[in-house]
Each structure stands twice: as structure tokens, then as C-alpha cells.
């Protein structure tokens, strides 16, 4: 099945069913993106002036950083992806969203969970496990919200009228199964009253982080790109056979990555991850090839619209994946482990790949679902041209800083603090990139908020009109 443009008119029952869930998921996501990037900016400024806000325990570096990362990942990436997933399932299945009220409730529960988690981290109640910092109560809220959302998504998937499966289905359906499994495993083991002893904790943490930050985001982001890129390019996805190959190799190999080469664990664990990391180059090449074939010569001009966002996002994915793969190779990891490399790769994955795909998807699907144009269409282009240099300016200096650290650390004659000072100027440049990214996120949020407010006002107006309308004669008579 080939998705084509303008499949349905804007005011179809399908779109009507998706309006409220999309606004709840994407609107909240936009808020968390702004919050997360603002927290990240505070963390970045501390490398210019370590004493900046240091008297405030809530905003100490070690609390702001996990709060910022979790706000972007749990607050923005996951709900945005779920919104886009609901839309794609409805569209590909040619039916309205099943149980449309459930995702709205779930979205609010989810955002409440994120709020609770972030506040707890800032108050010093983080669990101490990377990417799992949210304490139990927040984790329960997130899990419940995801399961509710999954019910609606799975029902839409199961009751689809168009029975044949499109490649996007595979990726998005796998993402739907993936999250509850990894999130429950990690939380039940690590946050229980009797957690496993010793280094089993970080092993489970690494397994979870890899499956969430690399695999889950890849499944959701590439699934979205495989739906929207052909649609925007106006031609079918090139090489659907390769898509199956890419999907299976990604989930079978990618899920074994995650254990760093130097970890103090039995050597077979990092060795298994290193082999898997080499093998994920296979799906990366397949995905890159398919996307290049699909978009090349499509005749769609790239001026900063949704098409550009998603194209850039996929390029970011391939680059981030190659760097991720390299980070498990013992030769590179000896030099780059514990440097800024890991941070740079993660931010490239979150912002350079995933956020870009989600921006493109939001700009494309929201006007269709709502049946109105974006309030500030020019800001979309501005957003793109701020965000792209922002990411480059954020991530590239961090990679240079990592290489600088990796070059100097092996020489014990250079004091550690001096070696890190040499990397400091690059960190400071990267703050400029963070600022641009933050401004870009504000532009994104402004478009979404104005849209949401207008939609709510229109709903209110029609409600008021219905209340004020004179009763029909038949009912007015006693």
C-alpha cells in the first residue's frame, strides 16, 4: 500500500477523532521540550561559571542534568512519538482512532508522571540509575499511561480496515511492545525493595538505556520517517524488501548493544555488545540506502518544511548510529570512554535525529488533523534554520572536546584538571548551540500553543452557541 497525499479531506471522522489526543500528546511534549532544554542550558552555563546558581540545591549540576535529559526523553520524545503513532495507525488502517478518549486521559497521566519525576529529581529523590531517575510513583504513572495509550493504539491497529501491513507498521508496533517490557523490567528489578546486588544493577540499566534511547527511538523515528518521507516526496518507499531486512536486523542485533567495553563486569558481556554494535551497521546502511533512494530526485524543494526536518532527522540517525556503534569498539572506546563523546552522541540521537523527525511530523499532521493551517507557517522555516546550526554547534564542539580529552588523558604527565581545561573552550562553544536549540524549541512551542488555544476557543464558542441557541419550537412548547 502506498500512502499518497490528501488521502482524506481534513474534516473526516478520522481527523476529528485524532484532534484531542494529538493536542494533548504533542502540546504537552512541546512544553517538556522547552523545560528540558532550559534545564540543559542551566547545566551548560555552569561550565562558564561553576558558581552559577550553586547555592540552590534544586539546581545543582548533578540534579539539573538528569532532569533535563529525562524531560527531553520522557517529556518530549515518547509522547510526541505516541501521538504520531496513533495518527499513522489510523491513516494506514483507514479508520478513525479506536477509543479516542483513552489517549487523552493517558496523555495527561503521562505528563503528570513526568512532572512528578522531574520535581522529585530536583528535590534530590532521583533513583541514581541513568535514564531511570524517576522514583517509583512517577514510574507507575508513566507505565499506566503507556499501557492505556497502547490499548487505544493496538485496537486501532487490530481493527484496521486496510489489512495489509506497511513497513511503518512493523517499526511502530514493535515500539509499542518494546517500551512496556523494558520499562517494567528495569523498574521492577532496580526500584524494588530488594534490588539485585552489585554490578547487575548497571548491567540492567545499560540494557534498558540502550533499548530505550537507541532502539525505541530508532523504531519510532524510522517508522515515522518511512511513512512521511514517501508521502511528502509523492512516491513509494524504495525497496520495501530492504525495510524488512533493516527492521529485523535492527531489533535482533541492536537490542544486544549497551554494555560499555571497559565495564567492571564479566568480559563476555561487553564482548557481546561489541559484536552487536558492529552488526547494527547493517540496518543503518540499509535504512540510509532506502531513504536516499526514496528522496533523491523527488522534486520536492527543501526550504525548511516538514520534508527537510525528516530528511535531516534520518541523516542524524545514521550518523548517531555509526558513532554509537564505534563507541563499543574497544579501540575507540579506550580513547573515548568517559569523555564528552557519549554525551554528544546521546544529544545527537535525541535532538539531531528524533526531535527533528517529530518536528517534521507535527508540522505535517497537526494542520491536517485540525483542518486549519499552522498559525505561523513562516516560523517553521525559521525553526529549521535555527535548529540545524544549533545542533551542529552543540554537538560538534562536544565531539572535539572528547577527542581532546582522549588525546591528553593517557599521558599521566598532564594533570587531569589541565586536560579537562583544554576541553573547556569547546564546551563553552556548545552552549551557544544549546541556546539556538532552545530558541528553535520556543518557535515550535509557539506554533503548537496558538493552535491549541484557537482550537479550544473554537470548541468553547461552539459549545456556547449550542447552549445559547433558541430551543426548537417543538421542544419550546409545553
Amino acid at each position, binding site marked *: 500500500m502506498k500512502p499518497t497525499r490528501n488521502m482524506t479531506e481534513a474534516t473526516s471522522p478520522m481527523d476529528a477523532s485524532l484532534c484531542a489526543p494529538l493536542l494533548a500528546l504533542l502540546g504537552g511534549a512541546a512544553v517538556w521540550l522547552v523545560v528540558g532544554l532550559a534545564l540543559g542550558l542551566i547545566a551548560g552555563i555552569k561550565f562558564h561559571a*561553576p558558581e552559577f546558581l*550553586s547555592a540552590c540545591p534544586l539546581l545543582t549540576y548533578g540534579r539539573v542534568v538528569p532532569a533535563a535529559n529525562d524531560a527531553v526523553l520522557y517529556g518530549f520524545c515518547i509522547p510526541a512519538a505516541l501521538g504520531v503513532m496513533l495518527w499513522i495507525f489510523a491513516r494506514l488502517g483507514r479508520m478513525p482512532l479506536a477509543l479516542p478518549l483513552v489517549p487523552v486521559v493517558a496523555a495527561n497521566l503521562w505528563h503528570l508522571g513526568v512532572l512528578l519525576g522531574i520535581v522529585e529529581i530536583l528535590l534530590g529523590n532521583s533513583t541514581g540509575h*541513568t535514564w531511570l531517575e524517576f522514583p517509583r510513583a512517577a514510574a507507575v504513572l508513566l507505565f499506566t499511561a503507556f499501557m492505556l495509550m497502547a490499548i487505544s493504539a493496538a485496537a486501532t491497529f487490530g481493527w484496521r480496515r486496510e489489512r495489509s501491513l506497511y513497513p511503518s*507498521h512493523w517499526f511502530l508496533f514493535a515500539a509499542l*511492545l518494546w517500551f512496556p517490557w523494558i520499562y517494567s523490567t528495569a523498574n521492577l528489578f532496580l526500584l524494588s525493595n530488594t534490588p539485585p*546486588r552489585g554490578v547487575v544493577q548497571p548491567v540492567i540499566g545499560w540494557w534498558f538505556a540502550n533499548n530505550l534511547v537507541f532502539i525505541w527511538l530508532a523504531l519510532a523515528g524510522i517508522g515515522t520517517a518511512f511513512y512521511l518521507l514517501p508521502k511528502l516526496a509523492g512516491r513509494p518507499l524504495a525497496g520495501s524488501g530492504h525495510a524488512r531486512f533493516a527492521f*529485523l536486523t535492527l531489533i535482533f542485533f541492536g537490542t*544486544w548493544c549497551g554494555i560499555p567495553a571497559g*565495564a567492571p*563486569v564479566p568480559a563476555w558481556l561487553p564482548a557481546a555488545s561489541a559484536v552487536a554494535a558492529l552488526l547494527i551497521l547493517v540496518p543503518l546502511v540499509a535504512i540510509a540506502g532506502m531513504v536516499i533512494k526514496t528522496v533523491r530526485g523527488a522534486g520536492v524543494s527543501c526550504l525548511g518544511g516538514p520534508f527537510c526536518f525528516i530528511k535531516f532527522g534520518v541523516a542524524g540517525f545514521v550518523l548517531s548510529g555509526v558513532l554509537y556503534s564505534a563507541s563499543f569498539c574497544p579501540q575507540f572506546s579506550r580513547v573515548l570512554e568517559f569523555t564528552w563523546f557519549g554525551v554528544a552522541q546521546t544529544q545527537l540521537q535525541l535532538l539531531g535525529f528524533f526531535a527533528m523527525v517529530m518536528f517534521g511530523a507535527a508540522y505535517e499532521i497537526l494542520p491536517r488533523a485540525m483542518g486549519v493551517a499552522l498559525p505561523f507557517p513562516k516560523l517553521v522555516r525559521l525553526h529549521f534554520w535555527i535548529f540545524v546550526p544549533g545542533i551542529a554547534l552543540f554537538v560538534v564542539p562536544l565531539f572535539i572536546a572528547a577527542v581532546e580529552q582522549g588525546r591528553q588523558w593517557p599521558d599521566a604527565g598532564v594533570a587531569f584538571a589541565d586536560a579537562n581545561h583544554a576541553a573547556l573552550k569547546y564546551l563553552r562553544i556548545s552552549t551557544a548551540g544549546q541556546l539556538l536549540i532552545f530558541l528553535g524549541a520556543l518557535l515550535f512551542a509557539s506554533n503548537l500553543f496558538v493552535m491549541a488555544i484557537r482550537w479550544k476557543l473554537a470548541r468553547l464558542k461552539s459549545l456556547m452557541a449550542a447552549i445559547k441557541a433558541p430551543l426548537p419550537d417543538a421542544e419550546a412548547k409545553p
Partner: protein
Amino acid sequence: MKNGFALFLATVVALGTSWCGLVLVPMLQLGGEKLAPILNSTATWPQPRTGEATLGLQVYRANGCAACHTMQVRQDGIAVEVLLTSLGSAGSEDFKEFVQSLFFLPELEKITNALAANLQDWNGALPKVLLTTDRKTVADEMVQRINAAGVKSEVRIVATGADMARGWGVRRSVAADFLYDNPVQLGSLRAGPDLANIGVREPDLNWQLSHLYAPKSVMPNSMMPSFRYLFTIRKMAGVPSPDALKLKGEFAPAAESEIVPAAEAKELAAYLSSLRANAPLYEAPFTPTQP
């Protein structure tokens, strides 16, 4: 994948295998890990922490110290060195001559250049590392020959690598080091130094507290933010508190007032002092320095 069931099956199998491999098997292999015997000793590792230090781990967690500090010492390999501890009745020049007479032994042939360069500028100071090699037989041969001549020397096993050279540890970190930790916070970024043996490097609690309050007071080019919210600045009531920080110069408190650590600061300092990964284990052997 033509239908939803095949898709479901593929996903479950993919994630299920990795769940078994990276969650279940590590739990079975490491979850029941026992205290490790320390080599050439009846003691076990890790040694238990004091109650204060155990609370300090939670202060470490709450303030996200692991965002900037790792607790993973990396090791390149292992080397064998010959350490000269006593010359007996011989003088250092006599000893040099004696060592040169050994150069013609076929076993020591490959190391004569290194040995000669090592001894050239030696003024007789002890203890002296005579030889560092990766072949234990060579070191054993050497020790046997020179001990026979009346000097005292020993073969020592040392871990090598940049982290060891920086004094961040005497061996790599191993799984047993973290048995008493919950949560285990290995860290993944070294914006600051590794802390696996910070308790050996800086055993002074007052140093730790001053560093937490004003990092630049003890490390002039530190990038660490101050944790002054773990301290109270108060008016001195007659006698100064025994806990008060002894800070000098620009970091000193105003006259008649003192800086006292809150309970959390003391716990954190106690925890940091308890980090002393310095016991030789079967999986990470080395010869400890005799006190």
C-alpha cells in the same frame, strides 16, 4: 511479515533473547556474588562501610555526583617489576658493576639496554625499581641472581595504565567492588576525576569538607560547583565548633562566624573516605605495598 502475528512473534523473540542474555544470565551469574577473598589474607572484600558512610552514598545519589565522576578504574595490563629494597653491605657503585656483570646472561640479554639506562643516573636511593617487564621468568631470574649476592630485592606485580599512573587506583575496578552499593553508580563521564580510591588519595576528612564547600580552596583550577548548601554559616558562640572548616584567605568566613558542615556533608565526606579500592583480588592481582 504479512500479518500481525508474525510481527508480534519477531518482536517478542528479538527482545526476549536479549532479555535472557543481558538481564537474566547476568542475574544468575552475578546476582548471588559473595564477598571476595583478598589475596594472601584471611579478610574479605569489600570491607563494610560505617553507618555514616552508607548514608553518604545516598547524599552522593541525591546530588547526582555520578553525573561528573566515574568509579571505574581502567587497566591496560599487568607488569612485573624488580624492586630493590636494600643493598646489604654493598655500595651503589659496586652494585652497578655487579649488575653489569649479569648482562651476559642469555636470560637477561633482551633487557640489558633498559637496565643500563635505568641504572645510569641512579644515586643509590632506595627503594629502587630495577626492572619493569612483562615476563615473570626474567624478573625471577634477576631477583635470584642479585639476592644471591647479598642485596635484598623482590618481584612485584603491578597493574599498568594511565589511571594507575595518575594514582587513581592500584588495580582495575571489578564487580566485587560494588557489592555493598545500592544504587550502584558507576558513572559514564569524567568531568571530574575518578573516585574509586579517593579515600586513599585524600584520607583527610577536613580536606573533603573544604573541597565540598569551596573546591577552589584546595584545587585551584577545579571546575566543581560548590556544595555550600550542605553547610551552615553561623555566628561563633564562644568556643569555635570542632567541626568548623579551617579555610584560609578569600575562602575564610567573616570574623566571628564559622562554617559548619550539616549532617549530609559529613555523611558524604565519610562515604568518599570509604572509597578505597586497594585490595588485591584473584581477578585483579597486584603486590600491595608493605607499610
